[in-house]
């Protein structure tokens, strides 16, 4: 018999290293002589999309088109140290470092532009690749011209930004204190169908609501959430490195099974934006948080469907059949 169930899973996740571990990032932003921009950041993009997000933050802060911003990342010979791409920290920590560098570059540019406009730098702004008077936006100069002009006069617009996310330490005996700078939160809902004859669990659909502070790039967030849910379902239902007296019995993809396109259902991502004042444009992060509630929600969905509670992951058909037999 096939029975359906729905389960909820929730979590919080402290982003960054926390409890006083050094948590810094540095970046350099350089406006070249044709007005295009290079971000130098030690941040590794392993596919999560940090290169893109850091370029968006630089473009937004400088007021130049995103297409004109490129990035050199993660090279000890060329980029400043941004810390590791772990702990869902790069959008927040490196995002802040890039923003600070870009703000400083912008301030220098406006100072230079002020001479040309014959006004105070505070009267000027940059947006969409144009430097303009705030009180009269029709009085503007293309950003590229400004950059070219500046470089011809030997000016360089390059700045270093550093952001320190190191938190205070917690009490060693009680672990009480401000352990993390901020947290991300999530709720996921997993719908399953359990075959009580075979013990097989089919996941029908997943809903995933994640508080990310601010979505710098909603597409990237969907990518992170959809991929994390698939990994989380693998963790819940099939994945296990089996050791026998220390020897790995599952050393390949034929034994350590991960979800294929046939195993993963549709995921509906719902982005909650509750801005974090310290985050760049209010952003926090998402990468790690996205995977956390999936297994919990799946366990609860299986319980909802067939009334047996699995307390050992993964939820294999054998465990389900055994639990069903014990229940009867």
């Amino acid at each position, binding site marked *: 018999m096939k029975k359906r169930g*729905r389960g909820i899973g929730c979590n919080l996740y402290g982003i960054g290293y926390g409890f006083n571990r050094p948590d810094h990032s540095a970046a350099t932003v350089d406006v070249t002589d044709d007005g295009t921009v290079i971000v130098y950041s030690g941040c590794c993009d392993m596919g999560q999309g940090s290169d893109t997000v850091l370029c968006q933050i630089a473009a937004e802060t400088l007021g130049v088109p995103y297409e004109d911003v490129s990035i050199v990342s*993660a090279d000890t010979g060329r980029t400043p140290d941004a810390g590791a791409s772990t702990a869902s920290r790069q959008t927040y920590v490196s995002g802040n470092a890039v923003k600070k560098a870009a703000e400083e570059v912008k301030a220098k540019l406006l100072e230079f532009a002020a001479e040309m406009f014959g006004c105070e730098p505070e009267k000027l702004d940059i947006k969409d690749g144009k430097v303009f008077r705030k009180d009269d936006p029709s009085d503007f100069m293309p950003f590229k011209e400004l950059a070219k002009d500046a470089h011809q006069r030997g000016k360089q617009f390059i700045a270093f930004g550093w952001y320190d996310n190191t938190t205070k330490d917690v009490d060693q005996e009680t*672990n009480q204190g401000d352990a993390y700078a901020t947290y991300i939160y999530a709720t996921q809902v997993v719908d399953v169908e359990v075959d009580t004859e075979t013990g097989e669990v089919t996941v029908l659909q997943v809903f995933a*609501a994640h508080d990310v502070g601010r979505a710098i790039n909603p597409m990237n967030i969907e990518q992170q959430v959809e991929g994390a849910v698939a990994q989380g379902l693998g963790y819940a239902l099939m994945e296990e490195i089996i050791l026998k007296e220390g020897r790995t019995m599952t050393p*390949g993809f034929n034994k350590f099974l991960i979800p294929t396109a046939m195993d993963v259902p549709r995921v509906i991502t719902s982005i909650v934006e509750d801005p974090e004042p310290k985050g760049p444009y209010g952003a926090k992060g998402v990468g*790690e948080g996205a*995977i*956390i509630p999936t297994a919990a929600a799946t366990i*609860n969905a299986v319980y909802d469907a067939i009334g047996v509670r699995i307390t050992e*992951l993964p939820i294999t058909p054998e465990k389900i059949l055994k639990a069903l037999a014990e229940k009867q």
Partner: protein
Amino acid sequence: MSEFSIVGKRAERKDVRSKVLGKALYAGDLYRPGMLHGKALRSEYPHARIISIDTSRAEKLPGVHAVMTHKDIPGINRFGLAILDQPVLADDKVRRMGDAVALVAAETVEIAEEAIRLIKVEYEELPAYFTVEAALAEDALPIHEGGNLLQHTKLRKGNVEEGFAQSDIIVENVYQTQRVDHAYIEPETSVAELDHEGNLTVWSSTQYPFRDRRQIAPVVNMPSNKVRVIQMTTGGAFGGKDDITTEIQAALLAVKTGRPVKVVWSRQESMVCSTKRHPMKIFIKTGATRDGMLMAMEGKIYSDKGAYCSIGHFITKKAGLHLSGPYHIPHIKVDTYAVYTNNTICGPYRGFGILQASFAHESQMDLLAEKLGMSPLEIRLKNALKVGLSNATGQVFEHSVGFYETLKRAEEYMKTHPLEGGVE
């Protein structure tokens, strides 16, 4: 209209064109002139003393350029993400299956593999411990100096005895999670090369080149300003490329041979040798009042570290700090224990200990809800952390606690998407 120009937009990824064209360069796509291939001989015992290593036959194999054991390391023979507890090449003993014992650089991968088979290692087996309980037994031999209990942390908020006394319902359970692999599709890969000035460059599939450099330089006995680590396009990582994998092996062989060396772990090596997500055994007791307010939570977490720390002490600690979930609970007591065993190493993997914690706290929430005759959603809404409420470490936020809103979104979803054929 949005207040932002590009923030909040679905901007095209900077890396996407080169990736769909197949032009993105991953570390394995580097082919350097005169490049050799490196392979490691790995321990076949989970815990054993090394008596002798005989590399003579391997050295004589045509096409072999270098065979290295711990004696050939120019600098220190230790590395580690947080604690330098891992030998680059096993010296006194091996602590798990898969510890690297010797390295070979050869003209081809096949020759390197053949040379590996020709190396003879004599071991003296030691008692090995495959469970946390066995490793913590009083008569267990220490896997590392300092014993098998790597770390014990304590979280104390309020007074749990009082909290349970105020609870009408108490639910107590034990949860066990398994060991899993990151399973990124690109295996661990590095290419290392010395230039004409004696500078070492390592191109790698990594999550943090600066910490790689910090660990490579002392092993090859070079200052950091002579070592450059460049992250190549990386085919997934999820925490598994946070630790050193192939970087030091490639660097050592390149320094030894003076030739560029590529080291690619096979899928099997990746499964055996890279870090895994920690199996955790979680004892948890949760108390609530009749109207569903959480009053107390007490927990113990035992994590199986495997043979080396990586960053598992922080992972285990973080799991403890998150064991109460996104809820306000006035009284909390949690103890965590990170324990060395002779199993595969556990380290960072997306979620950093919190998947294990959430499996436990979310199972508990549903069990409580059922006993209280509440819906799973209702009990969560009642206890959700909000601005102004303290979390497990007593921290109170004035901003950006969006948990309640994620629950409301879920509520809306469940209303508009009723589960067809579900149990009423």
